């Protein structure tokens, strides 16, 4: 398996963005500014501990990408994230945002420029949704009308009612809705950087899945540089442009989900991503990422799937139907080409380690 596998890596992982969503946020004033975040030998030793919680971490996250920090408990992933906004102070090394050391900035100014979403959500129960979302803009001294307009815009962006919901209190919303408000709050001042600490970890699986999908769509509209902490490898594969696997404070592997699944650097990573990593790779790619075979003459027969379908779902479809070939439909439902079962299963096998961009 080589480049000719037809996978277009430069396309990135965010599947085709829905046109509907595109038009919905056309009026949004989010510039989607994003910053390059760079860890440079960052080290954290907690007082009274001999071993560092984070040891000489160096990695760069390109602007606008989602970087997932993952590892078993005690790996230091949350510590690494909290170094960025100085909720946890560095012991050694540096972290820079667009080349500027976080140590050179005033602590409150630094934090106001970084969105923060965490598992406990942490909405202020005594403030309305508008008050919550407007927290940082208020600190920045925006005029009231601008804060309101911004809050309305963001509520729409995260899928809430910008009219009614604005005046309600957090206690009136479900957990999933509250975290949507949490995400809106973290984007209120159009922060170029977002820290997300297991943001969907406390939600039920269906709600979590919806929020993940919605966040990816949102991110495609308004790209931010995101540090996303999780302990769930499936979430990491789904959300991350890049995944950094940590173990006992050290960076073990930092690469795209596809490369990590295809060629884990050592036993630890292989164990961590799981024995079914071949199958998991199929969660990374969609039909549209593959090079299509031309349509056979005549009416298409057999199973069909849209080009934004995950390969894992296509595999399942083909196995269920007992078919060898799927007809790929474009966004309008028109046949575009076909893909064989062999091409998909070819991605699972051990030889695909060669798929390097």
């Amino acid at each position, binding site marked *: 398996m080589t480049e000719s596998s037809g996978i277009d890596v430069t396309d990135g992982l965010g599947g085709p963005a829905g046109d509907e969503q595109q038009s919905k946020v056309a009026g949004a004033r989010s510039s989607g500014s994003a910053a390059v975040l760079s860890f440079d030998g960052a080290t954290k030793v907690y007082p009274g501990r001999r071993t560092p919680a984070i040891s000489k971490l160096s990695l760069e996250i390109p602007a606008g990408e989602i970087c997932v920090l993952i590892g078993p408990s005690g790996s230091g992933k949350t510590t690494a994230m909290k170094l960025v*906004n100085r*909720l946890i102070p560095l012991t050694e090394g540096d972290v820079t945002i667009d080349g500027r050391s976080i140590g050179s900035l005033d*602590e*409150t*100014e*630094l*934090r*106001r*420029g*970084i969105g*923060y979403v*965490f598992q*406990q*959500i*942490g*909405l*202020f*129960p*005594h*403030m309305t949704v508008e008050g919550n979302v407007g*927290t*940082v803009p208020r*600190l920045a001294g925006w005029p009231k009308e601008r804060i309101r307009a911004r809050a309305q815009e963001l509520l729409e962006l995260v899928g809430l009612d910008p009219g009614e919901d604005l005046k*309600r*209190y*957090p*206690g*009136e*919303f*479900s957990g999933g809705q509250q975290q949507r408000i949490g995400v809106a*709050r973290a984007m209120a001042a159009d922060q170029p950087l977002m*820290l997300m600490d297991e943001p969907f970890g406390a939600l039920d699986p269906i709600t979590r899945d919806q929020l993940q999908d919605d966040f990816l769509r949102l991110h495609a509209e308004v790209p931010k540089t995101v540090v996303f902490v999780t302990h769930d490898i499936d979430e990491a594969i789904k959300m991350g442009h890049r995944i950094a696997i940590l173990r006992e404070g050290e960076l073990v592997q930092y690469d795209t989900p596809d490369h990590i699944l295809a060629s884990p650097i050592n036993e630890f990573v292989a164990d961590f991503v799981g024995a079914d990593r071949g199958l998991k790779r199929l969660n990374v790619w969609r039909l549209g990422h593959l090079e299509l075979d031309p349509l056979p003459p005549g009416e298409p027969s057999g199973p069909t799937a849209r080009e934004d379908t995950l390969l894992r779902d296509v595999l399942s479809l083909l196995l269920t139907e007992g078919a060898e070939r799927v007809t790929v439909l474009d966004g309008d439902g028109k046949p575009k080409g076909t893909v064989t079962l062999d091409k998909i299963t070819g991605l699972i096998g051990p030889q695909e380690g060669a798929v390097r961009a």
Partner: protein
Amino acid sequence: MTALLAQQGPVIPEFERGSDCVRENGQFCFDWFVDNFGDVFAPRLVEHIELTAIAVAIGFAISFAAALTAYAYGKLETPFAIFMAFLYTIPSLAFFQLMVPITGLTVTSAEIALVSYTLLILFRNIITGLREVPEDAREAARAMGLTQWQLLWRVELPLALPAIMAGIRIATVTIISLATVAAYIGVGGLGQPIFNAIQSGFKTQFVAAGLLAVLLALVVDGLLVLVQRGLAPWMRATRA
């Protein structure tokens, strides 16, 4: 007994000219109460409200400062609480009498004692309210770049408000009750008609003053509930 004698209370009034009820010293003569409300009770009621309002206001100011200090410097909480508990346990009659040699038969004496009784209640409630602010709200505030001061005024104190209001309600009702004893050192209030009635044996005056104090406590407590609802509208806004 100098303090008691300082009360220039009338003996049972108008025994000859009053109604049957008054002449027979009935449990409660409504007609006498209505006729004498303006002279005997209204000024005392106003004094009583003043005594209470001043005590709770000053008590709150002191407790608030003490609670914020103890919240910032945890080591101070226990000494503060012990001192306030000590004040709280002094029997009220003794406390008022104790103040007389120092500040005389004055409102100041009464207020020093009354304020002392509010401290423990208010201090405890403010501290508890601040402690019970959800940690996640605090973390979110810090992560969004609120300063310590902004965290306190925009997040912690508003969220502690229900507990603080609960403290104010308990303190106010307590002081309305205790302030009747302050009449012992001649500062007026609803305690004065009660002390007079104890001397004269006129039951209606005794019962009426007592009832007015209870009624005042209930009304003020109700008003404070309304204030709390106005200040903390989010408390009622939860998902059905």
